[in-house]
């Protein structure tokens, strides 16, 4: 089981209300979010609208507001909220003993062809 999870380091690397990025060689960059509630989520770092870097948006509740055109994206499902339509892939994430893990297949499987 452990082999399927990619350890990306301790939780305190990301302050609550912030996000950090994880570039993937040959794949899509990932944004890892820490909400003010203390939860962690990971999405592909590209808004479904015009690929804005979601990692740079304002985080409120479990929503991030895209910095380019203010689309609200759910951190839980990657879906655009409100009247906007679109979805960005989510990456399964778990926190264990103070470290953040991402599901390996979801990280490296998202490679550009």
């Amino acid at each position, binding site marked *: *089981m452990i082999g399927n999870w*990619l350890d*990306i*380091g301790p939780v*305190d*690397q*990301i*302050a*609550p*209300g*912030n996000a*950090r*990025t*994880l*570039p*993937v*060689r*040959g*794949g899509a960059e*990932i944004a*890892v979010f820490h*909400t*003010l*509630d*203390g*939860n962690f989520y990971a999405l592909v770092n590209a808004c479904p609208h*015009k*690929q*804005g*870097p979601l990692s*740079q*948006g*304002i*985080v*409120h*509740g*479990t*929503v991030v*507001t895209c*910095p*380019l055109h*203010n689309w*609200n994206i*759910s*951190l*839980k*499902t990657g*879906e655009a*909220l409100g009247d906007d339509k679109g979805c960005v892939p989510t990456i399964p994430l778990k926190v*264990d*003993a*103070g470290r953040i893990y991402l599901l390996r297949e979801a*990280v*490296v499987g998202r*490679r550009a062809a």
Partner: protein
Amino acid sequence: MNAPMSFEGAARPAGTRERLVVIGNGMAGCRAVEEILARDPARYAVTIFGAEPRVNYNRIMLSPVLAGEKTFDDIVINTAAWYQDNGIALVAGDPVVAIDREKQVVIAQSGRSEPYDRLLIATGSDPFIIPVPGHDLAGVVTFRDLDDVERMLAAAEKGAPDGGKGRAVVIGGGLLGLEAAHGLSLRGMQVTVVHLMPTLMERQLDEAAGWLLKAELERRGQTILTGGDTGEILGEGGHVTAVRLKDGRELPADIVVMAVGIRPATGLAKAAGLDVERGILVDDHMVTSDPAVLAVGECVQHRGACYGLVAPLWDMCRALADHATGAPSGYAGSVTSTKLKVSGIDLFSAGDFSGGDGAEDIVMRDAARGVYKRVVVKENRLVGAVLYGDTADGSWYFDLLKKGEDISDIREALIFGQAFASGGALADPNAAVAALSDDAEICGCNGVSKGAIVQTIREGACSLDAVRSQCKASASCGSCTGLVESLLALTLGDDVQSGPKSVCKCTSFTHDDVRRLIVEKELRAIPQILQELHWTTPDGCASCRPALNYYLLCAWPGEYEDDQKSRFVNERMHANIQKDGTYSVVPRMWGGITSPKDLRAIADVVEKYDAPMVKVTGGQRLDIFGIRKEDLPAVWADLNAAGMVSGHAYGKSLRTVKTCVGSEWCRFGTQDSTGLGVKIERMTWGSWMPHKFKIAVSGCPRNCAEATIKDFGVVCVDSGYELHVGGNGGIKVRATDLLCKVATEAEAMDVCAAFIQLYREQAHYLERTAPWIERVGLDHVKAGLFDTPDAVTRLAARFRHSQQFMQDDPWAKRAAGEDAELHQHLAEVRPLEFVS
């Protein structure tokens, strides 16, 4: 070393019973035995091994013992008589050191071995010790058992070396740490809590409740350092003397309590070859990978979850006993709730309150009573609750949550609690308000009764705003806004007029209300505003957070600490984000004047960082495009080295002062417009505003600097300076209004500073000067500046005061390493085929 003590039970007929050996004389181990005895008292011959030399006590009540509210005897669960009466052999103070699964024998520290038919592991958990230098000094304790409590009491008794109050540093602001801090503080120690995260008890509380808790603990005299990272524990002669944080702060300490978390105690199980991940793996019947070995409590991992609270233990013990007595039922995991055992602080949290899709937050805040309640509803079911200040309904919410009952019938009244929601007809809030008597007080701040409000509405006040201005109800703290709205709806039906626009969907307050109340009530932090002004969301949204951050910055210059996470990306990154996620960088060029040195530095940056484009902007600056966020600090360092600072082309702030060449070169120039432009830019740069702010100075009425479409424009004439305000280009071009004419540069500078400050203090966030002036009228602006003789002087003085905290180049700080994590990736993933 504790000497082993034996409480041997009564003699029992040998060979007739299965032998059950329990490792762990704590709450889980003993409870499991109790549950088994209750089902089948004759089935097992029980032997319990405990590491502590005492009978089983209620570990979660150690906090009241520390606080002096209870004694050890009060918290004993199983007395020596209980072991005796039930024929249980207790081996206390002789911990088990090995399990031989092949021979089915456990071996204790003294060498004693005990054979078993069934083994139950209930070793609980170990406190986690941060491995910082000095963690093993005398005086560094955990908070896990009675010995720890006794060490803390001794330290409190002893006091500081100089005879003063003893000083305690508690590392960890979670449940356990705060209870330890509370106890030590009641025992007369001066307590500092160091917590790594920005919010206390962040796993149980949201930001709002965490803020209330911190404020209350500080009021009680504790020092709470959130965001504090312990670097080292200092000592002298082997005993602790201080804690040093990574930022260099040193906290003197006579005792240090480490309460940063617990880990399942799995050492024995692991050594015996049982399957262990984070905890000992068990199935729904608490059976480990060896069918003869059971495990229960904080040491186990069940369906991926480890628990550190007491309630799940009871559920596990029931399932275990059912299985061990041949009537298996199965444990399905627990929903947990948390209560802080600090007297006088009511705090409750349960379930999942992380919100999210399909989940709806219902928030109620009562600032006067210090109450914050939040329930989270998903698919008509309650999934989470956080209560602070009034936890009377905690158990009711927890019950609804565990049962997963459909709450659609009581949804509207859910947040008001059980008494209200169960009141049948009263479940409709309007009906509840209708049922109030006429003399019931609605607005506590201004003492307005229901009758008086209804009277005001009947006399023609048909909006919230009209009610507020005519009878003052809901005009102060606003906590009765919902009730007043209900009265409007009840009295007028559909004829209620909606009031001015609120800041956002999180509140019914307008921008003006919020700005006024920040000053009146001296609100100094975003969570405090959200609480005092009854925000309906736990942590605001992308609209209100930046607005509140600006309003606080404007109201409390030099005191308010800017909240980076409430800033739009450009202001957080000090550069302009572009459509491809890269940034553009605009160095400041005072008045639009540049030099060979500046130009060389810019050219070097363009080449060094391979910027695909460099462009002259409309504001007379050079814009370098295509810089990656990782490279920004290095780019800034290079520009700083040439003497250039941030151009703030990215901010709701002073952008540029555009100038023409003026009297120095131009044959038409009447005054030194370039010189004045440079002076104005030196005065105004770095100031945060409600929106972007552009200035221009033209040397003659030909107006080559286009001063009449700027927020503040100066047009020089022979006799002095015409000052224009409220212009902008953009979608809807607006030419400026003439504000006044002055004779000297000094006067022009003063009026400029005063006008900016009036705009900063009065406009709504994201309102440029043009719509602001259209909304309030030019006369209002003129009155604010000129009706009282010294208004300009006072406004300008406030602006200059604020500027002394703002004119600090943000690029230089970033180039020196501040907030480095904003520019760095966490890591880079390189799948195997990309590794060369």
